[in-house]
Structure formats: structure tokens, C-alpha cells
């Protein structure tokens, strides 16, 4: 059940909120726990195995947290064992579902067709952070299984992040939520996220879909560029929209989630970009991989090795495939080069930095999106007018330019920091709230027309 669906907005959310607001304070975590489980079960109803795996994961991590806490006091070393066992179990689970099909196929074992459980990449990382935090003493284990499930399964951040660590929500989890609930501010952010997803991402996504549908051998050079820009916008507004919706929902429930995107397309270097894009993932890798490995404190070559580890892991976290490995490696190369001094250059020559990002961002997304290597090669060839072409429709960029031009410009505008600044200026005014209502009605219109689902929107 995605947040931008009719069933979520008009059925699940209102029912959940009414119950959540009405029950006495001491039962709010119960409602959060069971409501979130219901959310997961509804979303995975056709795959009972996934539900079972998730429930086992919840119980195991909860038990491991307690074990670590207990052994910490008694025998030194046993807590490390439990931490290692917990991390291994989580990674094994993720490995099986996410990478087994790919690796088995590469080893010549044929197709396994293992379907990825919803949210597994996110909840696995959160579970690992939880047991690591308990081990490090950054937090106490959750007071009860209910509280733990309320944290790990909390539906706003369950399926697509942001990756919320336990210490960030620990206080809110055990304090009076009625006092913490910020419904209006949450609803505003939720609506912004909804608009980003439904009005921008889903609509601009049509252009990339067209490009793939036509086949790269039949597109013109301008069409190839237009499409990869469209994909870059789709990815951003989709993911950022989801994060905003999660943050908004969190506030409606009395939780404050970390910011996940800060105008990433305004970055001047790749390093800068990844500090603004999916920030909760970046900080997870920093916190639980990069720093434990020594970060940049153990000499230059060790730093480079640590960076390589982090970026290769980032690559494969996003998917199982050679293109993700290549993508992660390219990011590593760019970021390592920037570390050697290029970054400072771009920071001082910001225009050149923006120009660099104008190409580097879409081109790295091209590596990200093309899972098939021959397609990937062809796409890059088309970007520079090479490669074998068949049946090119020479006016495709005019046709799709007319169809998507305004939307592309709108996406460009919303990628800058201007909307954020404008929002700050008019925040709280009637015009601001009116704008929110207009966005909501726009989204409702798209839902009404069936345009929420790109699949439906795409006519024959």
C-alpha cells in the first residue's frame, strides 16, 4: 500500500489516525505496533512468507537487543557475539532475498525468481543500527516487544525510509505523544510529498518510460538526453516525495524523522550531492560502516579503502546487478577524486560545479537505471550520437518536447532551492495554506482520473 494511493489516503490513514488519537496515552504504542503490522500485512497479503520473515525479524532483533544488554553486564565478549550473530542474521536474510537470485543465476544455477519482500532493505538496516546502538550503549533496548515493533515497523518509514535510528525516536516513543503530535505541520509536509510524487514524479516518469518502450536504438540524441533528465527528476521527486510523506506522517503521530533530501540537484560536487541525497542512508553508512572502519583517521590509503567499501556497499544496497556495482564504483572514483582537491575547486567555482553536476548526476543515474549492460552501452552511445540505429523517428524530441517541456521546466524549478525559500517567506499565510489545498486537490484529481498509477495513466 503506497502512501499516494486511494486506499491509504482515504481509508487506512483516517481510520488509523482516529484510533491513534482516541486511545489513551498508554495504548498509543500498541496502536502503532498493530496498525503498522496491519499496514505491512495488507501490503504483502499475497506473500505470507514475507510477512512471516518480517515477524521473525522483529522478534529476533528484539531478543538480540535484550541479550546484548544482559551479556554486557555479565561476561565481556558475549555481547559482541550476540551483536555479530544479530548482524549476520540480518544480513543473511537480506542477502538471501536480495542477492541470491542474481548470484545463483551468475553461477549458472538457473532462475530462482526470489521476490524481494517490501521494505527489507530499510528494515534490515534499521534493525542492524538498533542492535549496534544497544551494543554501543547509545540507547537502551526497547522496553517491550510492542515498543520495539512500534519503532521498527512504524508504517510511515517502513517501506521506503528515511532510515530512522532508534535513538532518534527513543524519547518520543516513551513520552506523551498527544503533546508531541503536530498534525497541521505534518499534514503540510505530507501534502508536499504527495504533490511531489503524484504531480511531478509520476507525470515526468512517462517520458523515460516512452524512451525505454521505443528502444534506445530508435531514439534521437536530444531524446536520449531529455529522457535521462526526466528519469533523474522522476527518481528525485518520487523518493523525496516518499520521504516527505513519511516525515509528515511521523509528525502527525508525534515523531520527528530526520531530513532525507536537501535540494540535492543544487549540489556542486558528488560529495556534496550525496550529503544532500538520501541523507539517512549516507549517515547510516558513515555511522555503522565508515567510522567503525576507521573513517579518514587511519591514513590516506586506508581512507580510500574505506570509501571504496562504503560506495561498493551503497551500490549493491540499491540492487543486485553489475550495473549497481559499476555505479557504486563510479561514485567512489568521483568522490575519491574530489577528496584529492577537486571538491575545493568546485566549492569556490560554483558555476563549474553546477555544470559538472548537470552531467554527472544524470549520467550516474543512467548507470543506475539500465540493468542490462548491452542496453546501458547503447544508451551511452545514443547520448553522443553513436551506436547502430534502427527506425529512428527523427522528430521524437519535438513531439515529446511539446508533451513534456513544461513539466521538465517545472521539475527544474522545483529542484532548485527557490520553492524552499518561497515556502519560508509565505509560511503560515493564507496564501500558503491555499497552495497546500490546491496541491491536495490536484493530487485528488489525479487519483480520480487514475493518473496516480503511471501504469494506468499510460494509455494505448
Amino acid at each position: 500500500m503506497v502512501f499516494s494511493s486511494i486506499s491509504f489516503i482515504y481509508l487506512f490513514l483516517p481510520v488509523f489516525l482516529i484510533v491513534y488519537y482516541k486511545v489513551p496515552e498508554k495504548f498509543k504504542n500498541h496502536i502503532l505496533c498493530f496498525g503498522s503490522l496491519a499496514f505491512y500485512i495488507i501490503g504483502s497479503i499475497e506473500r505470507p512468507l514475507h510477512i512471516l520473515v518480517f515477524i521473525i525479524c522483529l522478534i529476533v532483533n528484539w531478543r538480540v537487543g535484550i541479550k546484548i544488554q544482559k551479556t554486557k553486564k555479565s561476561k565481556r565478549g558475549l555481547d559482541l557475539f550476540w551483536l555479530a550473530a544479530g548482524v549476520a542474521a540480518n544480513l543473511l536474510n537480506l542477502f538471501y532475498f536480495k542477492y541470491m537470485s542474481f548470484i545463483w543465476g551468475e553461477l549458472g544455477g538457473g532462475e530462482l525468481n526470489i521476490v524481494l519482500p517490501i521494505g527489507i532493505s530499510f528494515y534490515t538496516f534499521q534493525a542492524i543500527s538498533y542492535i549496534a546502538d544497544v551494543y554501543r550503549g547509545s540507547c537502551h533496548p526497547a522496553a517491550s516487544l510492542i515498543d520495539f515493533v512500534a519503532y521498527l515497523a512504524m508504517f510511515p518509514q517502513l517501506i521506503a525510509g528515511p532510515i530512522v535510528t532508534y535513538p532518534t525516536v527513543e524519547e518520543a516513543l516513551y513520552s506523551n505523544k498527544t503533546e508531541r503530535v503536530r498534525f497541521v505541520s505534518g499534514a503540510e509536509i505530507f501534502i508536499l510529498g504527495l504533490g511531489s510524487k503524484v504531480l511531478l514524479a509520476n507525470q515526468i516518469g512517462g517520458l523515460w518510460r516512452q524512451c525505454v518502450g521505443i528502444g534506445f536504438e530508435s531514439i534521437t540524441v536530444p531524446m536520449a538526453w531529455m529522457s535521462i533528465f526526466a528519469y533523474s527528476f522522476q527518481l528525485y521527486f518520487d523518493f523525496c516525495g516518499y520521504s516527505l510523506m513519511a516525515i509528515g506522517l511521523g509528525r502527525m503521530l508525534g515523531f520527528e524523522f530526520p531530513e532525507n533530501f536537501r535540494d540535492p540537484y543544487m549540489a556542486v560536487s558528488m560529495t556534496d550531492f550525496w550529503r544532500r541525497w538520501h541523507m539517512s542512508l549516507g549517515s547510516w553508512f558513515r555511522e555503522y560502516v565508515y567510522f567503525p572502519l576507521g573513517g579518514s583517521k587511519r591514513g590516506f590509503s586506508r581512507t580510500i579503502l574505506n570509501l571504496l567499501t562504503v560506495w561498493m556497499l551503497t551500490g549493491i544496497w540499491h540492487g543486485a546487478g553489475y550495473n549497481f556495482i559499476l555505479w557504486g564504483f563510479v561514485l567512489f572514483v568521483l568522490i575519491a577524486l574530489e577528496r584529492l582537491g577537486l571538491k575545493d575547486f568546485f566549492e569556490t567555482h560554483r558555476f563549474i560545479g553546477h555544470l559538472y553536476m548537470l552531467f554527472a548526476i544524470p549520467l550516474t543515474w543512467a548507470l543506475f537505471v539500465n540493468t542490462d549492460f548491452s542496453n546501458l552501452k547503447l544508451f551511452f552511445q545514443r547520448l553522443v550520437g553513436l551506436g547502430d540505429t534502427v527506425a529512428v523517428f527523427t522528430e521524437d524530441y519535438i513531439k515529446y518536447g511539446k508533451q513534456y517541456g513544461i513539466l521538465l521546466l517545472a521539475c527544474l524549478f522545483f529542484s532548485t532551492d527557490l520553492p524552499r525559500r518561497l515556502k519560508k517567506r509565505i509560511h503560515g499565510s493564507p496564501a500558503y495554506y491555499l497552495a497546500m489545498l490546491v496541491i491536495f486537490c490536484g493530487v485528488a484529481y489525479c487519483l480520480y482520473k487514475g493518473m496516480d498509477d503511471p501504469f494506468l495513466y499510460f494509455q494505448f
Partner: protein
Amino acid sequence: MGKKFFLTGLAICFIVSGALIGYEKISISIAQKIALDSRAEDLAALQAMEYDGDDGEFAPADASFAEILPTEAVSGPLQNTENPPFDESRPASGEGDSGEEAPEEPLPPADTLSSDELEALKRRKRMVEYQTVGTDYFSDALMVGDSRMVGIREYSGLKEPTYFAYTGLTIFGLDNKELDVKNIGKTTFTKLISNHHFAKIYIMLGINEAGSKLSDFAKKYDSVVADIQEKQPEAIIFLCANLYVTKSKSERDKTYANSHIDEINAAIEIIAGNYGCYYLDVNPLFSDGAGNLSTEYAADYAHMYGKHYRTWVDWLCSKGVVYDDDTMEIDQYIDEYQQQ
């Protein structure tokens, strides 16, 4: 103040939009359910009936047709649709080989002809074998269709025909949908066939209407063909089957399931038979062998890669219809009759 305004506004927007969406979704799902439930029945009714072009109603098949032209009875619509998707395309009103025999039957004197017999003669005219033609064959052709036809226009390299094609076009939209037609300008289909002459007309519509009742679709399709025949009596009309969708789409979506597309196509084939039009089914060319669009050809679930439209057009070129002397003679004969 601002917050109160926002909350009130949000509540109103939420309730109103929720009610509208709820109403819309429920009514759509009811309509779709009715369409899905009734389509087998609708098709059976179509198969059992033959269209009587005069009063716009479906009437029981007229036995006299079969008496005049026995070859037609054996390959009539009912038999044709037994396994339509995997059949090679052919003129809907008769097998190719029968076409050679039919014109040999002596023509009765023009003044003794009843209107039924005339209709039958018109059909007999259609019984010619397909020929391979060059792309110049299409220079006096009109090609009407949805996104798949748009694909042909843009990616096949076939520049000769006049296209009236638009993504999302339906048979119901032909009266009102204005399109910018090359060298002609903005026009609706109805105006286009009223004001311009075409020697061949290809129609490929039906998939966007998959959510409508099959009987509604067939009725409208039927009237469009009748209208074309009235306005362009000389035109050779090709009614094209709708391309399948891929297996995954077919299994996921009842409305666009290939079994349903088969039914839509069967209805089109029946109409082709009733009007003596040619029915062209390209599906065997792009199918995976199990009645689905092969994923080898399609990246999305319903549209082919640009490069395959050329194959499609090559296939269309192999399905050209050129009237020979016999059919010309029938033409003259019909003219003569109509002048009387």
C-alpha cells in the same frame, strides 16, 4: 486563523474528493464488472446475429446469403471465430482460394437483382487473394488507430498514407476527436471521410475500449464501418485486430487480458464479415505462441519497440488487395444496378 482555514479547507477537500473518488471508482468497477460479465454473452449474440445495415439493428442471419454464395456459408463468421487468434489472416468473408472460384459464377441480369443479392455481390467482390504490394500502395490509404498506429506512423518508415492516429483514440472518439492530419489540417474522422477520398481505409481500434461493454463497442464499430461504406463506397476497408498485451499484463489485468482482446477481435472479425471488409490479424507475427505479445518485441506491456514496426508494415504489404478484372466487372455491374 491560517491554520483553522487550512484544517477546515482540508476537511472539505478531503470529504468532497473522497466522495467523488469513491463514487467514480465504484461506478467504474461496476461498469467494468458488467462489461466483463456480459462480454461472452455479447460475443455469442454477435456471432448468432448478422447485422442489418438498414435499420441499424442486429437481425438474425439471413439464409438467402448462403444460398447465393455457398462458399461464404462455410467460412462465415461463426466458423472463423472458433480459433481466431492463431489463424492466419484472411479476408473475413471467404478463404483466399474460394476467391478464385466465386467470380466465375455467372452474374444474373442486373434488373432481376434483389437488394439482398446485391449485398452478396458486394461481398463477392472482396474475395480476392492477398497480394504483396509496395509502400506506394498506401499513398491513397487512410490509417486510423490508437497508439499502435501512432507507432507505425513514427517508427515504420511508412510515410505514404494519411494517418488519423492518436494515443488513446477510441471508436467512440471518431466523431468528436479533432486531430491535426498532415496536409489536411485539424479534422475529426467523420469530417475527414466526408471531405476526402481514400482508396483504402485501415482501422485498428479496440484496446482502449476494453473497459466498455462489448456490445456497445461492436454497435459503434459497426456504425462507423457502415458510415465509411456509405461515404467511401469504393474504398477497400481493412479492419485490423488489436495487438495483444504481454503475458504478465494479461494475467494481472482482467480488462486487458488477451482472452478479452480475442473477444474484441472476434467482434471486429464478425463485423468485417458482415460488411465484406478484410480482417487483418497481425498477432501471430508477434505472439509468444501462447496468445500473448512476446516480450521479445515489447519493452512495456503493450507497445512494441520502435524497430519492430517495420516488420509490421512489411506484413501489411503482404496483405494488399488489388481488384482484378472480375471484381471490376462486379463493380460496374453494381453501378449499373444502382443507376437503374
